[in-house]
C-alpha cells in the first residue's frame, strides 16, 4: 500500500440487523493530506460507510461482513471506536450529535479524551472560539439550546480539539445558512491546508463539496459508481444534472420549470 494513502476501504460489505445488506463491495481511499468527498442519494449508504470506518456500526446493530479497512496502514477492524479516535481518526456524525445536556465548554472538554495517551499538547479551546466566535458567546449555555448551525459548529469544534489526522465529516452543511456553509467549508479547507488534516467528506450539497475536495466518489445503493478528481467530475453530464442541477449545457435550471418526468441516470443502466 502506498504510504500516501491514509485510509483505504477495500471491498467492504455491511449488513444491518443480520438481514439488510447496505454496502455491497464498496472501495475507496483517502490520500494523506487530501479532502475526498463521497456523494450519493439518500439511503445510498454514505453514513454507513463512515460508521463502518469509525467502528460505530455495532451500536446500530450493523456489521462489516466482508472486506478490509486500513487506517494508516493498519487493519482497524478490531479496534474499539474510542481507541480509533485516540489514533487520530475522528468522526463528526450525521445530525451533529452534540451532548445536549452539557454546556458548550463541557462538550469541548469531552473531546479532550481523544488526546488520551497520545502525548499531545492539549488544544486550547481558544482555537475553536477563534474559528467560531458564536460559540464563545454561548460557552456556558447548555448545548441543547443552540440553534442548528451553532450545534454544527460545536461538532466541528470538537473535531479540532481532538487533533486528528483524518476527519470523517457527515453532511456538515446540513441545515446551515448559505453564508455559514461557505464559512464552514472555508474553515474545513483551511484546517486541511494549515493543519494538514485529511478528510472524508459526505455531502448533499455537491457544489460546495466539490469546491473543497480534491477527489470525489459517487455512490449508489451500496457501491461506488463513479469516481475521479474533482475537476473531472464537475464536467460529467450526469453529475451536473443530478448533483449540480444544471440542465445540459445551459446554466442552472429553475425549480419552477421542473418536468414531471425524469431522465434515468446513466450509471444505473
Amino acid at each position, binding site marked *: 500500500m502506498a504510504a500516501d494513502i491514509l485510509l483505504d476501504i477495500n471491498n467492504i460489505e455491511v449488513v444491518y440487523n443480520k438481514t439488510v445488506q447496505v454496502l455491497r463491495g464498496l472501495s475507496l481511499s483517502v490520500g494523506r493530506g487530501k479532502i475526498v468527498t463521497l456523494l450519493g442519494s439518500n439511503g445510498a449508504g454514505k453514513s454507513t460507510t463512515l460508521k463502518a470506518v*469509525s467502528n*460505530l456500526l455495532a*451500536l*446500530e446493530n450493523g456489521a462489516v461482513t466482508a472486506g478490509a479497512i486500513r487506517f494508516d496502514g493498519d487493519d482497524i477492524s478490531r479496534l*474499539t*471506536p*474510542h481507541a480509533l*479516535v*485516540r489514533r487520530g481518526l*475522528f*468522526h*463528526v*456524525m450525521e445530525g451533529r*450529535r*452534540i*451532548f*445536549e*445536556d*452539557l454546556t458548550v465548554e*463541557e*462538550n469541548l*472538554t*469531552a*473531546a*479532550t*479524551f*481523544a*488526546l*488520551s495517551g497520545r502525548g499531545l499538547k492539549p488544544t486550547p479551546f481558544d482555537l475553536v472560539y477563534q474559528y467560531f466566535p458564536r460559540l464563545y458567546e454561548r460557552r456556558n449555555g*447548555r448545548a*441543547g*439550546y443552540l440553534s442548528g448551525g451553532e450545534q454544527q459548529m460545536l461538532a466541528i469544534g*470538537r473535531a479540532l480539539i*481532538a487533533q486528528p489526522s483524518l476527519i470523517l465529516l457527515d453532511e456538515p452543511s446540513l441545515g446551515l445558512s448559505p453564508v455559514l456553509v461557505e464559512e464552514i467549508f472555508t474553515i474545513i479547507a483551511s484546517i486541511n491546508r494549515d493543519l494538514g488534516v485529511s478528510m472524508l467528506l459526505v455531502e448533499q450539497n455537491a457544489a460546495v463539496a466539490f469546491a473543497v475536495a480534491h477527489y470525489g466518489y459517487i455512490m449508489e445503493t451500496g457501491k461506488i459508481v463513479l469516481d475521479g478528481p474533482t475537476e473531472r467530475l464537475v464536467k460529467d453530464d450526469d453529475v451536473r444534472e443530478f448533483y449540480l442541477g444544471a440542465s445540459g449545457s445551459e446554466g442552472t435550471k429553475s425549480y419552477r420549470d421542473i418536468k414531471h418526468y425524469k431522465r434515468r441516470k446513466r450509471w444505473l443502466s
Partner: protein
Amino acid sequence: MSDLLFFIEVTLAGLGSGALLSLTALAFVLIYKATRVINLAVGELLMLGGYLFFAFAAGLGLPAWAAIPLAIAGGGLVGAVVERGLIRPMLGESPIAVFMVTIGLGSILVGLVELVWGTDPRALPAFMGNAPIFIGEAYVSRKIAIAFAVAAVVIAVFLALFRFWRGGVALRATATDQAAAYSCGINVPGVFSLAWVIGCGTAAGAGVLLGSIGGISPSMGVFGLSALVVVIVGGLDSVAGALVGGLVIGLIEAWAGTYLGGEYKLVTTFGLLLVALMIRPYGLFGTTEIERL
C-alpha cells in the same frame, strides 16, 4: 424531658437515617448519571452487601475491617458482571426496558440470596460498639451517628470528584449520547463499568451499615424504594440532590413518624414526592430534559 430536647433528638435521628438514605440514593445517582439507567436493583444490591458482609464476618470469621471492604468489593464485582452481562446488551434500548431489566435483576438477586442463605432474618456481627453518643443533652444512636459520618464523607468525596475531575464530563457525555461519546474518544464501556462498579459498591456498603442497624433479610431491599423517593425528589442525576433529598426525607419521616404516628411515614413522604414532582418535574436539582421541535 423537655419537648424541645425531644424534638432535637427526633431531628437528629431523622438526619441520621436521612444520611443512610442519601448514601443509598448516591448509588442510584452514580449509575444514572453515566448510563441513564434507574437501577431498581439498588435495594437488592444493598441487601447483597449485607449478606456478603455476613458471609465474610460471621461465616469466615474475618474481622470487620477486612469484611467491610470485601463486601463492598463484592458488590462492585457484581456490578461489573451485571453491567457486562445485562446492561451492555441493552445499549440503545428504551429506558423503560433497561429499568425493567434491573427489576428482573432484583428478583434474581433475592431468589439467589434465598437459595444460599434462606429467608430467615439474621443479625450482623456487631462492629460499631454500643456506647451511646450524646450531643449536648440529646441522645443519638451510635450506629446512626456512624452511618451519618460515613455517608457525609462519601458524598463529599463524590461532590468533589464531579466538580474537579474531567471524568465527570465523560460520565455525563456518555449518558447523553453513547455513539457521540465514543466518537470523542471516551471509553464508553469503561465508563459504564466504572459507574456500575462504584454504584453497586456504594450500595453494598450502605447495606453493611443498614444491616448492622436492623439486621439483614432477603426483603430488606425495599429500603431501595425509599432511597428512590429521595433521588426523585433530589433529581436523578444530582449528587447534591441525593444529599439534600436524603436529609429532607429522613427528617420528614422522623417528624411524621413521631408526631403523626408510624403509619404516616410512608404516606407523608410519598405525598410530598407527588407535590415535589408537580412543582419540579425533574427534582430539586435534576437536569431538565431539553424538548425542542
